[in-house]
């Protein structure tokens, strides 16, 4: 009787946790390969084609017009010199943060639930940064001279101004893009090597190049592990610094509403908030649309990320409140005017919408484990959080810029060509993901297998206990 009970308990755990439900390596390889190689359905091509048109029109055609005709096509004016382009830049950098957070921080802390979705999260970092790059370059008045912001040797000895937060911003984002791409690539090597051995034709050539001749010998693994370890640790401070520096663009300026000392951590928490929301939405889509993914990505993963989302939402609420209080206590009359303009001005609906999306909705839904484990529900919450975080950046940039110390210039902002360009970046982000799902293994098979090997059931008397052994 008790034996049967213990057995069913074990069954239950197995069903719930990927790490306790091992499959042979060959079987998992096959599943991941099938998910990737599955010929695209007409639905895939329909969405792909539609997004391609959106990207062609929204991103490339509109950007070309913007470059040819000038920033006047956008909604920026005096005093709102920065508009949705900067909102989108901060938004995409925010999204790119959760990728590294999930992958590097959870790897360093050895959180086992991370294993199946580190790749998807790292892709989010890289693809998100691409959109952030697009958005910041759209913003420039003379984008064809953007290389002047880089320190390159030149005859006139002209260097970028290291006093400017924007210079640091550019350096930080470039560093982050390069290091996160390398960090994406390293754990990918064993998986593309696996794919190389199981494919033919152009794919074989493609994976052959990507795999760098990886054969899986002990020495290669030792080097790879070292490399990944160094990157996992080193990328964490880079990640924190990037969004702190993004916040300096605002915090270092003498604008009411921007000049806030709490902006560094506030922006980091905000970035994680939106990033987690985006990550969970991506996971839900992968799970819902790709073959075999219901084995790899389970309710437990949504549950675990859901918990993180709840905590981050609380942290965000704290920092939001803190930022508000600190600015209010500052007693600057312009700041006080601005803070009232936020909630009582014409954009007050956005201010309240931000609080509902970022605090009320996550708190109302994520406290419940059952709801937290329901993919579509958590994914919806994730998308709502992203809407809320976009609102937050919109309030910080164009709404806060409407009010300054020269009341004669006060004015509202009406977006123009920013809208197709913003939609274009979103479409390009999804498009890159769709392409990646067909080109590289989205599940790090070796990482899942490593975890499964480390987990086992142990019996202590009648009690079944899960034990995890250290592999590394």
């Amino acid at each position, binding site marked *: 009787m008790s034996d049967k009970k213990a057995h069913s308990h074990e069954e239950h755990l197995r069903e719930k946790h990927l790490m306790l439900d091992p499959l042979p390596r060959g079987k998992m390889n096959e599943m991941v390969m099938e998910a990737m190689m599955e010929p695209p359905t007409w639905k895939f091509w329909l969405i792909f084609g539609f997004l391609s048109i959106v990207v062609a029109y929204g991103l490339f055609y509109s950007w070309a017009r913007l470059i040819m*005709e*000038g*920033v*006047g*096509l956008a909604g*920026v*004016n*005096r*005093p*709102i*010199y*920065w508009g949705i382009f900067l909102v989108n830049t901060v938004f995409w950098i925010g999204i790119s943060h959760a990728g590294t957070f999930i992958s590097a921080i959870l790897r360093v802390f050895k959180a086992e639930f991370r294993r199946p979705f580190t790749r998807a999260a790292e892709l989010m970092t890289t693809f998100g940064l691409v959109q952030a790059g697009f958005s910041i370059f759209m*913003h*420039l*008045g*003379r*984008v064809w*001279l*953007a290389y*002047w*912001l880089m320190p390159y040797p030149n005859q006139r000895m*002209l*260097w*970028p*101004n290291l*006093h*400017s*937060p*924007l*210079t640091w911003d*550019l350096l930080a984002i470039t560093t982050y893009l390069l290091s996160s791409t390398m960090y994406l690539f390293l754990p990918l090597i064993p998986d593309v090597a696996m794919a190389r051995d199981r494919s033919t034709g152009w794919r074989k050539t493609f994976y052959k190049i990507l795999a760098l001749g990886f054969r899986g010998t002990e020495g290669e693994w030792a080097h790879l592990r070292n490399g990944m370890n160094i990157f996992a640790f080193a990328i964490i401070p880079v990640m924190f610094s990037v969004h702190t520096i993004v916040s300096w*663009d605002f915090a*270092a*300026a*003498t*604008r009411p509403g921007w000049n806030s000392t709490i902006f560094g951590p506030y922006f980091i928490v905000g970035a994680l908030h939106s990033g987690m929301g985006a990550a969970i939405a991506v996971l839900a889509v992968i799970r819902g649309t790709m073959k075999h993914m219901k084995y790899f990505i389970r309710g437990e993963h949504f549950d675990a990320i859901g918990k993180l989302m709840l905590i981050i939402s609380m942290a965000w609420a704290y920092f939001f409140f803190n930022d508000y209080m600190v600015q209010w206590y500052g007693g600057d009359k312009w700041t006080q005017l601005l803070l009232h303009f936020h909630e009582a001005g014409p954009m007050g609906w956005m201010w309240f919408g931000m609080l509902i999306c970022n605090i009320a909705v996550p708190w109302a839904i994520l406290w419940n484990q059952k709801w937290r484990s329901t993919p579509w529900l958590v994914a919806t919450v994730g998308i709502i959080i992203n809407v809320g975080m976009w609102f937050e950046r919109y309030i910080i940039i164009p709404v806060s*810029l409407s009010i*300054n*110390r*020269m*009341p*004669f*210039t006060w*004015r509202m902002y*009406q977006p123009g060509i920013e809208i197709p360009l913003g939609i274009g970046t979103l479409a390009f982000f999804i498009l890159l993901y769709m392409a990646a799902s067909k080109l590289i293994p989205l599940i790090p098979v070796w990482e899942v297998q490593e975890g499964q090997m480390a987990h086992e059931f142990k019996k202590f008397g009648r009690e079944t206990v899960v034990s995890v052994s250290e592999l590394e």
Partner: protein
Amino acid sequence: MIRPEEIKMSSEETGKWGMVIDQDICTGCQACVAACAMENNVTFVGEVDSGYGRSMHWIRIERFWEGEYPEVKMTPNQPMLCQQCGHATCEPVCPAFATVHSQSEQLNLQVYNRCVGTRYCANNCPYQVRSFNWRDYERPEPLPNQFNPDVTVRRRGVMEKCTFCIQRIHKAQDKAKSEGREVVDGEFTTACAQACPASAITFGRIDNPESLVSQLGHRSHGVKHLEELGTLPNITYYKGG
């Protein structure tokens, strides 16, 4: 760019060129705005963009009122232009060194051909006096026939702002140098001061205690706008004197 050792406190900073604006005698006629646009090749923006807050005037007349309708009382007009701050907030934020401090003239310069258009300087200017070239605006006839050859014509994507008519400063300095003398106070003035029919704007050397601008500037009720930010502005305003 200002290095830390060059940052001075408000009391010890003198500056070089300065202005005194008497709001009480300003009639709000906009002659200074027109003169500035002609002198400095400021482009013609048009009604639509101007109405949307994209006017590019380097000097503007700000008009305010007090009270609620119908008990409305106009307050004195306030000409607003670049304050040529001694410690300018626009300068350190430019990533490309396109806005720099002239050590010899103590003015904030804008290097048009170095500007990439991040617009950070304009955001960080508490006086909101920088103008951005939102487009390549067409100048209606006969405006293209009256370009000032001493001033660069700016293209789209570039920030610009009041220079205290630096071309006139240089011209006067060159002339004085060729004649082997110093520039005399009142020998030249900026376009806005020259055009003002009420002589509300006075321009000159504020580091010379004998100059008219210094004499006017030492009256007791002068105000420097947003001085509390530590920007060390070089324009003194008089109102209700």
